[in-house]
């Protein structure tokens, strides 16, 4: 249904920020996203610079790992939440190897819009990304209307 509403190119043209301290995972995500047709991708392995990048890059979607040295994903979720305007819908998809219920609850409570456990199914992750972007686009349209 949404496919009729939204042109796929409008989805893939969106900016995606991927944050993971593991180089291999970042590579996997970039590889997956590029294969799906996304072009505006920013990848970070240093969570320390994440907030600055978030502000400068203004991503439409964030792919976020939770367990990272120095600054972890929960702190970033809080920081993003503080920075975002209340009426904005900027989805964060948490991708983490921490499969505990507590981690899932905490991340979702801090504003994450979705949660996928590692190791993940690449196709599932690609579908969730496009769904979240679709929601964002529809949300923007609603606000403009």
């Amino acid at each position: 249904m949404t496919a009729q509403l939204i042109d796929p190119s409008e989805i893939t043209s969106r900016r995606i920020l991927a944050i993971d301290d593991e180089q291999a995972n970042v590579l996997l995500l970039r590889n997956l996203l590029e294969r799906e047709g996304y072009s505006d991708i920013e990848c970070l392995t240093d969570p320390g610079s994440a907030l600055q990048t978030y502000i400068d890059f203004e991503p439409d979607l964030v792919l976020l790992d939770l367990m990272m040295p120095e600054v972890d994903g929960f702190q970033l979720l809080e920081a993003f939440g503080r920075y975002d305007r209340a009426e904005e819908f900027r989805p964060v998809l948490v991708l983490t190897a921490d499969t505990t219920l507590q981690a899932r609850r905490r991340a979702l409570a801090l504003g994450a819009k979705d949660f996928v456990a590692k190791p993940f199914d690449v196709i599932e992750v690609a579908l969730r990304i496009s769904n979240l972007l679709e929601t964002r686009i529809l949300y923007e349209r609603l606000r403009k209307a």
Partner: protein
Amino acid sequence: MRAGTAPIPALARFWADRPLAVKGLVVIVLPLAVLLGSLVSLYLASNAETRAEDDVRRAFAIQRDTYQVHALLAEAAAGVRGYVLTGEDRFLEPYRKAQEDVPVTIARLDSAIEDTIVRSHFEDLRLIERDKREGLREIVELAEGGMDTSGEVEPALTDNKLALDELRRSIDDIQQREAVVLDERRARVDDVRRGFLILTAVSALVGLLGSLSAVYLFSTGIVRRVRRLEGDAQALAKGERLTEMPEEADEVGRLAQRLVRASALLRAREDDLRASEERFRLVIERVRDYGIFALDPKGIVTSWNLGAERIKGWRAEDILGRHFSSFYPPETREYLPAQMLERARKSGSAEDEGWRIRKDGSRFWANVVITALRNEDGELQGFAKVTRDMTERRRSENALRTAREEAEAASRAKSEFLSRTSHELRTPLNAILGFGQLLEIDEEKFGKSHREAIGQITKAGRHLLALINDLLDISSIEAGGTDLKIEEIDLNELFDEIRALASPIVASAGLSFELSQPEPSVAVLADRRRVMQVLLNLVGNAAKYNREGTFVRLACRLRDTDVEVRVEDDGPGIPVDVAERLFTPFDRLGQQDRARVEGTGLGLALSKSLVESMGGRIGFEPLDQGSRFWFSLLRPDQARDTPAEEQPSAFEDTP
């Protein structure tokens, strides 16, 4: 009654034994009886007097009658003489009167005379009188003859005169005798009167004595004893022992005996109490592990036991009379002892745990209970203090707490480690599987050998993931880190669920899936997700390894407290000698045979952990053809009104 006070012990005893009613009767009847006796004797005495007076009267009558006889005869004789001399008839008058009256008087005398001497005189008198009258009659007849009779008359008259003299003598005899008799009778009357007087005096005396003895008897028999009883009762009240008395059978005696028995009983009880107090005192004195001692209201030590000496190091003679604040270390000595006494005074007792010091100044950790001691009126008498040396206990409790904290820390560390391990293993696997999947998507770009290689990578990666999941599951369960949600689950629901989930697996192995559901259904206590995990594992195993058979069968058997769920197949079976290793991790029963079958080697070990964490057991038994795996699930507490029948495993095909 004391035996010594009685003049005749046996009599006194007899008297004392009579009931009070008898005693009262005697006391009242005795004077009355004496009075009655006096009256009777008075009556008898007056009767005797009357009789004696009659006798005197009779004596006078006899005297009078004898005189009359004499007078009549004398007059008759004088008359007859006159007649003889004159012949005049009128002189015969006295003679005729005498003839008439004398026999009458004689007859009266005859009946009146009782005295034998008088009677003999009277018999003489009668003869003489008869002669006399005969003589007079002869004279009168002679004189009447009219002849000269002077010759014959003169001697007759002389005879007559002699007879009269004789008569007079006889009468004198009678009179004399009668006078003697009269004197005797008078004397008797006097005797009777005197006797009467004496009798009266004696009666009065006896009456007086009777009254006195009645009073005496009453006094000794009742009053004195009641008074003694009162003394006994007072002694009893003071708790003195009463001396045993001779048993007297009346009420007072029985009461006295009861008092004596009561005193003996009281004494026995007091002795018991004293013995028990003594025992108690000894026990307290001998107790070694508790310091038990007493304080006066100001806190001065007034008693000391062995335990107190052992714990505090003070000997009784050194500590008695000192204030108990000596046991407190300097930092609490100023306020805590007073505070403790105040608390005990207000609420009855006060408990405290803290440092105390021994005589040598060393410290020990004490548990102290101070109890206020009050008398019946609620006045404070002092305090009892019980002290225990808890230093060892405190040390071991601290050690225990440390050990527990360490164990908890270790458990936390283990959970943390598991969680980190999970994360660290999954993270590289994510890249491996992710890239593998991407390569599989692009597999038309590669040659056959590369495609196979990519397939091996993803397959090994998934296997590794399964291994990691199972391993972490087991570790987590064993570390107690898995929260089970145990609830009542309908067994048929479980069967329906497993049918839906496992049917494709069983069907893909070319086997039929037979379920024998309990009818009616029963409830079990289990975590739904975990029990499904176990069921899937067992059914999956049966499907995987049964490559020669025809079916996988699910059945159950109801028991009193649990349900046994069975998963059976008709495959090649498992040798008994290796069966015991079935539930050991990674022991896949001959890897060479089973290499073709995919599995982590952790499924049964995980199932075992899961079943046991739900309170059940798991096991295996070989069948004639095939194998049976079973596990038990607890049933909710149920009323045992219907004995749970063993439900035979009726293996009916369920289409």
